[in-house]
């Protein structure tokens, strides 16, 4: 009998269906991977299991019985435990205190010794038998903290462990520790739901894999009966041609040259020549250094060093205005946090970096600002009728176009540094953004993008630079690379040894 299941689960936010009739079930002693692109519905499904969201249609079954999970507390009582990306441990407290923190079973007056013994036993099961119980959690690496979190769930008699991208920021050794802990849990009869982007891990640790796409369950397979290309095909669900524009690669001469770029502590020695009219993609996961390289070139990293030239002119690092003066513009992956001024109007956002151009003695020239905003909106495909709306009323895709519109210029072609260009952007707007990028490259722009989305990397790039833990693994011209090679590079590169 399955320990946890959903039947016909549908979840709507307004008219937007984020889970559509999803049916899947998890057995005891099963490690189940859940894969899918950003926005496929993975995290919504997890939130249904952990009581954060409730399904609009369909039922959740625990031990075969229809069960409401109205709150995270109830999920815990049912034995469903989440190990989130943002860990919920208190860094200043000891391992022991963290394990028992918030556990309602512990009475106010309790025998410390019994708690110590149970904590010790739980830690041993996850491979931390050597850890002193008094160690403050702040002294532990992220990987060990995750193991402590697993031990904490064990003391609460969790039966289903849900791990949301646990390895995204871990080293190989730590990943191996997590894997052996998971195997040990499985041997104990526990079940595990494992959310990941790394396809290699699906085959290494998981028994079965369920693929979600646009809120629908594409299918569930045994990992022994499926291969990587097949899994990719399930995740993408379409040929890549429909999404991406077609173009001819036209080398236009070096525009941005990067030599010996150091971005402590991640990137040691990064070199790149980016040509006019090209899309150069830095492919890598979190911690690969791709984002760090971009931020350094944008002038946002205080201790970055290196020799940078733009069109033959040297550009100094560590200052955003200097990068901008060299026609290097940055588009952040964190739109709400760093990209868009959500409370400002769309039009005000578009001209945010050009106030000096359109003012005299510090006084704004409003007619010129309005004209500039209208022009940029047209160029970036932002609805001109909405220039006066607050930016937070736009959808993710439109906000991304807004960020793009702010970065482009009226005159000279620029170097655009764009991170995760389609994160949180729905499928329709994605294709528009890809067209936009290509269109500006045809005008002589050079676009460097950091992306962890392999499909996007292969579909958009003239040059792919694969990165892993701060190092450049390989460089491919368009057409030279395929999914397997890039994935291998950015997850477990052969040359990494």
């Amino acid at each position, binding site marked *: 009998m399955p320990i946890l299941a959903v039947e016909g689960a549908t979840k709507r936010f307004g008219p937007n269906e984020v889970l559509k009739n999803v049916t899947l079930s998890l057995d005891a002693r099963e490690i189940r991977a859940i894969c899918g692109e950003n926005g496929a519905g993975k995290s919504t499904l997890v939130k249904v299991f952990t009581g954060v969201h409730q399904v609009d249609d369909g039922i959740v079954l625990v031990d075969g019985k229809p069960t409401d999970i109205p709150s995270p507390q109830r999920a815990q009582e049912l034995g469903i435990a989440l190990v989130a990306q943002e860990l919920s441990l208190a860094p200043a407290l000891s391992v022991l205190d963290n394990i028992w923190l918030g556990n309602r079973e512990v009475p106010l007056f309790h025998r410390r010794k019994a708690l110590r013994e149970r904590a010790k036993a739980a830690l041993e099961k996850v491979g931390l038998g050597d850890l002193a119980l008094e160690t403050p959690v702040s002294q532990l690496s992220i990987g060990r903290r995750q193991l402590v979190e697993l031990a904490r769930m064990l003391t609460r008699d969790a039966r289903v462990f849900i791990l949301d991208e646990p390895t995204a920021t871990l080293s190989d050794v730590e990943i191996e520790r997590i894997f052996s802990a998971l195997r040990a849990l499985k041997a104990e009869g526990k079940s595990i739901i494992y959310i990941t982007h790394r396809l290699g891990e699906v085959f290494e640790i998981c028994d079965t894999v369920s693929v979600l796409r646009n809120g629908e369950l594409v299918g569930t397979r045994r990992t022994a009966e499926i291969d990587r290309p097949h899994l990719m095909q399930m995740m993408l669900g379409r040929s890549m041609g429909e999404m991406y524009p077609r173009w001819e690669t036209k080398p236009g001469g070096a525009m941005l040259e990067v030599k010996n770029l150091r971005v402590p502590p991640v990137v040691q020695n990064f070199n790149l020549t980016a040509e006019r009219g090209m899309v150069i993609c830095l492919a890598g996961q979190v911690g690969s250094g791709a984002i760090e390289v971009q931020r350094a070139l944008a*002038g946002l990293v205080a201790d970055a060093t290196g020799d940078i030239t733009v069109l033959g002119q040297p550009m100094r690092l560590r200052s*955003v205005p200097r990068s901008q003066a060299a026609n290097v513009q940055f588009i952040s992956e964190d739109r709400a946090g760093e990209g868009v001024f*959500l409370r400002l109007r769309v039009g005000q956002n578009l001209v945010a970096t050009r106030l000096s151009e359109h003012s005299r003695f*510090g006084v704004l020239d409003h007619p010129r600002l309005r004209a500039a905003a209208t022009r940029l909106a047209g160029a970036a495909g932002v609805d001109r009728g909405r220039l006066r709306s*607050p930016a937070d009323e*736009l959808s993710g895709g439109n906000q991304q176009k807004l960020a793009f519109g702010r970065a482009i210029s009226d005159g000279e072609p620029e170097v655009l540094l764009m991170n995760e260009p389609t994160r949180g952007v729905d499928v329709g707007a994605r294709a528009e953004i890809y067209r936009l990028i290509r269109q500006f490259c045809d005008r002589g722009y050079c676009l460097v993008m950091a992306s962890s989305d392999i499909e996007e990397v292969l579909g958009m790039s003239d040059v792919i630079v694969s990165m892993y833990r701060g190092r450049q693994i390989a460089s491919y011209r368009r057409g030279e690379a395929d999914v397997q090679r890039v994935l291998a590079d950015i997850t477990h590169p052969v040359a990494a040894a």
Partner: protein
Amino acid sequence: MSDISLRSRFRLGGTRARRLVLAVRIIAGSAIALFALTTPGFTSPISINALLNAISFIGCVAVGMTFITLTGNIMSLCLGATVSASALVFLASLSAGVLPAFLIAIAFGVIITAAQGALVGFFRANPILVSIAGLSLLIGGAALATGGQRIYPGGEGLQMFKGRVAGIPVEALYFFATVVIGQLILSWTRIGRVMVMVGSNPRAAYAAGVGPASAITVAYVLAGACSAVSGVLLAARYGSGDMELGAGYDYTAIAAVLVGGTAIQGGSGSVIRTLAGVTVIAIIEVVLLLRGFSQQLQYFITGLIVLAVIMLHTIGERR
């Protein structure tokens, strides 16, 4: 889930809460107006005069506070003390002439808050704590300088800061000038726009290459100048000064800023809104006074209003 339906949903969702907040504002505003107009004697010249005076002293401080709130630094607890201290400076330097004394007082206010602004902007110090430190320093410094005595200066020419022109109290004219200049700085200058950007999202402002530090410092400079104007007006009115003169002004000022609808998180609001806020609060105070309620009850009611406004904002921001 086409982009269109998603967009319209968000638009509706976003504005529905905002519309609700607007409706509550309009209803509350009308209720207050009705309440005021039915209060006997509210429209008499004397109470209108009292109203204008009440608005003017607090209003200048509230305009200054608006800049601090807009840049995302919540409020300063030091502006009331800045009012008192610049009043003392004004009175003490009257021997140099009224206009020089005025300029010295403004410069003093600016220096006090510019230092705090620089700490907040360049060193990312906590704005509330910095303002509390500033408050202590000012009170302590003033006690040392004056020996704790009230100042009664001699001096002529204070007429330019009191009395009336065309029936309107001069104080009100200075206040309205402050409002106009403040709003012009906000909507017509580069630095004003940058202040709003910084308040809306400091990280985005940094990534966009506009420095948050200098914008924050300028916001504090303006707050100091506005507070000093209020200090000079008070000093001229009473002809004497001590550190009690502006006590509590910071609280009423932030109340006015919030009632006006400037977002406490920063990034949204205006000086005009603060003018509306300060007017509402002053009307309530005058009405309570006319109806014979005590000073204590006035504080109580102001507290309730601020709470209500903060709750309203929270609802308006919710999705």
